[in-house]
């Protein structure tokens, strides 16, 4: 559709204005700064570098960015920027460098661990406040991100809004622009300079992610609720994680699971739209067996602290069959495959208890299994567990199915419900 006469007249006027601007600009021998430059100049006073300082050495331990969201000094950033100070308040303090370079204290007010947000209160409010956008963005719309990458300087980056990440468990804006370490917690702005999201992570060249601003608005409202003041941070984090896991696994369990063939077995395929499955079959000429594999999972995890993430869900099915290997050799083959998968993040004894396991034979859906179940606790998150399951069929002479399941950061009831459903979801379909 054409712009029409009225639009043409406005366009002409704009061109004239632009020419005037260019004329004055040329007199100063300087290029026009563009929208990014204008936004930077106007909003710079509301954006700061957030520093987490190691009290023992007095040096910075973590750097990120933040911005003021209210005139009385509320500053928003990412949870992961201040996570160390949240978990060990006695070892760290949080501050920002004031205009004169002097450090100004920031006090932790509240966190949303699931969406990676934190709100801090500045001892001295910043001179500017950023407004939060209320209107929706349209695909391809130009947006701007501010922050201090790699401790270099405060910068502004242009990019495009590309909607929400498909199949993500936690809603994230796909920002086709370049975010770098240190920009975490900085604001992403629309053309009017309103906050549309919070910088959170990057996934590759020109692939970055933003937390939608609506979660920040919700956290801000919650943070000021007087009923929440008495709760310590660990309790708030545990509560939020349990509610999130409960909601997520509850929704998965409420669904009807799809069923697809894998060799002579039927197994569940992907669950919901957050779990992706990949084919993992291989054919090796020298081997006397056939193998069909499927590996599924959601890698959308919640960062809780160094080495602690929750929310991972992975499972896999590998079907083996052979007419040439005898019974003993075929089960030797299955014995080699029947093992727990190493799907858990490397962590340490400070964060996690040790795994404990149980192994036994189980009959389910007419199939006999050898099953090993392992579980462990999270040190600082009571009621949250990791569970790993390895299963192998023992019913058939020339066919076997090895199944693995790993749940990350889940409550015991949900883990047990999920396991039951997982066992029930496999059937023999010769």
């Amino acid at each position, binding site marked *: 559709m054409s712009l029409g006469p009225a639009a043409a007249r406005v366009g002409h006027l704009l061109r004239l204005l632009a020419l005037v601007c260019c004329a004055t600009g040329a007199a100063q021998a300087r290029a026009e700064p563009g929208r990014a430059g204008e936004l930077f100049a106007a909003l710079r006073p509301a954006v700061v570098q957030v520093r987490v300082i190691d009290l023992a050495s007095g040096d910075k331990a973590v750097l990120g960015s933040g911005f003021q969201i209210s005139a009385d000094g509320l500053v928003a950033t990412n949870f992961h920027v201040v996570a160390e100070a949240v978990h060990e308040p006695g070892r760290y303090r949080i501050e920002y460098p004031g205009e004169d370079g002097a450090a100004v204290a920031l006090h932790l007010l509240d966190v949303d661990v699931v969406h990676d947000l934190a709100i801090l209160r500045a001892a001295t409010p910043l001179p500017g406040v950023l407004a939060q956008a209320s209107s929706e963005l349209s695909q391809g719309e130009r947006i701007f991100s501010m922050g201090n990458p790699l401790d270099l300087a405060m910068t502004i980056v242009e990019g495009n809004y590309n909607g929400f990440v498909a199949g993500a468990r936690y809603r994230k804006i796909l920002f086709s622009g370049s975010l770098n370490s240190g920009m975490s917690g900085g604001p992403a702005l629309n053309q009017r300079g309103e906050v549309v999201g919070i910088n959170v992570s990057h996934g590759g060249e020109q692939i970055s992610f933003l937390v939608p601003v609506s979660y920040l608005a919700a956290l801000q409202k919650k943070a000021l609720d007087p009923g929440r003041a008495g709760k310590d941070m660990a309790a708030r984090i545990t509560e939020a994680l349990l509610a999130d896991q409960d909601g997520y696994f509850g929704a998965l369990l409420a669904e009807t699971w799809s069923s697809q063939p894998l060799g002579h077995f039927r197994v569940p395929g992907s669950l919901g739209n957050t779990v992706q499955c990949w084919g993992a079959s291989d054919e*090796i000429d*020298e*081997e*006397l067996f056939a193998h069909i594999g499927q590996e599924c999972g959601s890698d959308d995890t919640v960062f809780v602290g160094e080495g602690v993430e929750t929310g991972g869900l992975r499972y896999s099915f590998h079907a083996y069959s*052979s007419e040439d*290997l005898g*019974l*003993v*050799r075929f*089960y*030797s*083959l299955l*014995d*080699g495959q*029947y*093992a*727990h998968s190493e*799907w*858990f*993040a*490397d962590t*340490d*004894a*400070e*964060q*996690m*208890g*040790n*795994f*404990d*396991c*149980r*192994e*036994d*034979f*189980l*009959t389910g859906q007419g199939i*006999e299994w*050898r*099953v*090993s*179940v*392992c*579980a*462990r*606790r*999270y*040190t600082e998150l009571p009621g949250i*567990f990791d569970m*790993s399951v*390895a299963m*192998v069929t*023992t*019913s058939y*002479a020339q066919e076997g199915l090895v199944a693995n399941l790993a749940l990350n950061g889940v409550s015991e009831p949900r*883990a*047990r419900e999920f*396991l*039951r459903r997982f*066992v029930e979801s496999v059937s023999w379909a010769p």
Partner: protein
Amino acid sequence: MGALMLRLSARHGRGVEFHRIAPEGLSVGRGLGNALIVSDPYLGAEQFRLQPDDGTLWLEVLDCTNPLRVNGMVRAQERVALRAGDRIEIGRSVFTVLDAAAPLPPALSLAASPWERLGLWRAPIALMLLLLAGVVVGGIDFLKSTGAPQWDELALAGLTICSMALGWAAFWSALAGLLGLHADFWVHLALAAITGLLWFGGMEALTYVAYALAADAEGFLAAAGWLMGAALMYLLLSSALSLSTPLRHPVLAALAATAGAYALMGLQDVAERDDFVAQPQPYTVLRAPFARLRPALDYPAFEAEVGELFAGLPEAEED
């Protein structure tokens, strides 16, 4: 009483000598002036004298530096009447009085050990045992493979166990040779081959037993493997020591050595049991269905086990 003989043997070892006791007597000691010179450091220069007198053989103990026992009783500077079959012990040496006219009692026969009775068959038997060990190890490897047989790899697995056994036998017979003792390469080789067979075949058998009987096959295997390893090490080491060394109590020595080593390993196991491991232990056991003896649980029973697992999880350590 007719003519008497004296049989001299080392307390541990296989060398045996026979000496006729002349009517004028027989002096025994480390000194060169004796009629019977025994190079045992525990004997005195002139340790004792045997004197036939009017149908009786008298023992005169001449040196009391080290205790001399006759049939287990310590005797010091006295005359003791001896009869055929009496046993004199001092230091590393054992003397037995024999009747020259009577046949040698079986207990003192040189071919006392069943192994020694095999004579020339010893070498082929040891080699057959070695071959059997190699075949068993190669066979176990074959059962664990999932492709067409790779003969070179299977042969290599068998050869590895054979070369280990050969090395073990060579070491102990060389050690015995160096110490001037009876050094039978074949007996050491047979021992090593039997141990290899028991170890590899035994571990495989244990895995089946664990799978058939134990809910927690891994724990069962760890305990059973440890015990079997300790027992085999003890048997092998104590036999090798008693065959090859002049130690007074090789069995005790071997026991002490192996018990010490295994106690250390056990302590290390216990110490590492609580070490943090980021991933669930990947080791589980599966064997062919015919090996299964435990009935499978139905879901409620299995879920109760999972419930126990969660309830029993160790509390994480707080700083």
